């Protein structure tokens, strides 16, 4: 084991892993975190804590991760390159480890233009692949990026994101390869709706031997309604929502659309369980945490292994 992460343990035991996601509040309430955590408890192996997602200011992912530990859940601490330089990042990683955080997800981050401070100054001192390499260096070599020694290095289980649907399609698997070569231990994908494309991508990854080198968790987000599906299709960068999903949701009564969305999601999870190279699922039910128990139940993902 590279870390003392529960997620790593689940994955190395060859158990089909489940991760969830929790967005910190736009305010100071620790109560919001306990409330959301309550729905995820014993339903997932680790919970991603987003880092000012869509460049909108929220409680820091570091603080929210620490609060999640208090609730008895394991955080997957997200860190984006948009807001911090290498000094701040390394310092936060040390602090995160000291607070008991054992998983880190390294991301580029959405451009600030989308957020609530569109004219803020971007940082991007290093990019997500370089961040992965930096965390690995800190863990495996016990040194900072500068080469200077760390007293008691942080032993993180290192995650990265992959989008099988972005441009250029042929390059996507190579970018995955770069992230794994940089040191990613596990990968969480963008929300998958286009299953054909995903099958093709995971097959390529599998054929290249990448699924042997890192654990790949397939990302899902249940659709709440036809409106949400259309919005995701048209407004969310890097999202591939096929027309067939929209047609299927349109085909049921408005009141039934949420359940239909969950049904689609569970069918996908059933397929992932059998798909070579897929080691788990990442359920991103942002602001819909209360449906996670139902999804994990229906998809046959429960009970989760007891964290040691």
């Amino acid at each position, binding site marked *: 084991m590279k870390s003392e992460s529960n997620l790593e343990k689940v994955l190395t035991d060859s158990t089909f892993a489940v991760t969830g996601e929790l967005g910190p509040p736009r305010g100071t309430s620790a109560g919001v975190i306990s409330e959301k955590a309550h729905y995820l408890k014993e339903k997932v192996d680790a919970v991603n804590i987003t880092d000012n997602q869509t460049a909108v200011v929220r409680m820091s992912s570091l603080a929210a991760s620490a609060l999640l530990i208090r609730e008895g859940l394991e955080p997957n601490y997200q860190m984006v390159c948009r807001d911090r330089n290498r000094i701040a990042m390394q310092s936060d990683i040390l602090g995160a480890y000291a607070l008991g955080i054992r998983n880190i997800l390294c991301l580029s981050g959405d451009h600030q233009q989308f957020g609530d401070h569109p004219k803020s100054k971007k940082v991007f001192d*290093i990019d997500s692949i370089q961040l992965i390499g930096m965390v690995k260096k800190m863990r495996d070599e016990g040194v900072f990026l500068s080469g200077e020694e760390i007293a008691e290095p942080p032993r993180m289980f290192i995650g990265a994101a992959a989008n099988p649907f972005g441009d250029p399609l042929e390059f996507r698997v190579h970018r995955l390869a770069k992230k794994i070569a940089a040191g990613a231990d596990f990968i969480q994908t963008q929300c998958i709706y286009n299953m054909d494309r995903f099958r093709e991508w995971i097959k390529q990854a599998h054929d290249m031997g990448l699924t042997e080198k890192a654990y790949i968790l397939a990302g899902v987000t249940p659709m709440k309604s036809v409106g949400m599906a259309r919005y995701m299709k048209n407004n969310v960068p890097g999202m591939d929502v096929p027309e067939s999903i929209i047609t299927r949701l349109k085909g049921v009564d408005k009141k039934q659309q949420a359940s239909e969305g969950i049904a689609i999601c569970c069918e996908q999870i059933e397929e992932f369980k059998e798909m070579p190279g897929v080691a788990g699922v990442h359920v991103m039910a942002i602001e819909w945490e209360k449906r996670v128990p139902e999804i994990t139940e229906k998809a046959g993902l429960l009970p989760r292994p007891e964290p040691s």
Partner: protein
Amino acid sequence: MVKAEIKQLQEIKTSVIGYSSILITGCGGCVSVCLAGGQKEVENLVTKLRLSCKADTAPKNIGGMTVERQCEAQFLSQLDQEVPKYEALISMACGAGVQYLAERFPDKPVFPAVNTAFIGINKDLGWYEERCQACGDCVLGITGGICPVTMCAKGLLNGPCGGPQNGSCEVSKDIPCAWVTIYDRLKAQGRLNNILDIFAVREWQNQTQGSIVLDAYKSRYTGEKK
């Protein structure tokens, strides 16, 4: 070349309120090429300011003069006779020119009349686009002649991010994704290998004021032997 854009007249006017005489100085270099601060723009601004500065507090005496380049002492010296006749100066040069002018005449308040925008190209008549951020460590040889630092909204060296769609950057449908462009060009040239390896963390070169002394001149400025 450096590209700049003239400020709103109101902002320029407000900056010189209270001075009875001002000299508007132009630059015949980059800012003249992008029609922001050359001789013609100086004449234009002189006329506009004269017309609109009728109030008591506005300057009464407004002159104009353009030198070949404000970023060179040799050319700035042409202003030596003229400047003492005025209370304050307006510079229509880029940020570098404004500062060199202010350094030469330290007792005169200097006000910029343009916003220096970027190092760019002339895309078409009156249309300029940024191409270089002067990072001090050029990688264009690796990235197919397309600058990831400038052209990628996130300045990624191991792009693309998860955002591009239909070849456009996630920030706008109208901006091509730099990394899709890099990929396409390298692929066409059979050089995709360039971006399969990880681009290591960079040591940014532009974090303190830049300065270049050519080897041939080192001894002249530092006393160092060649």
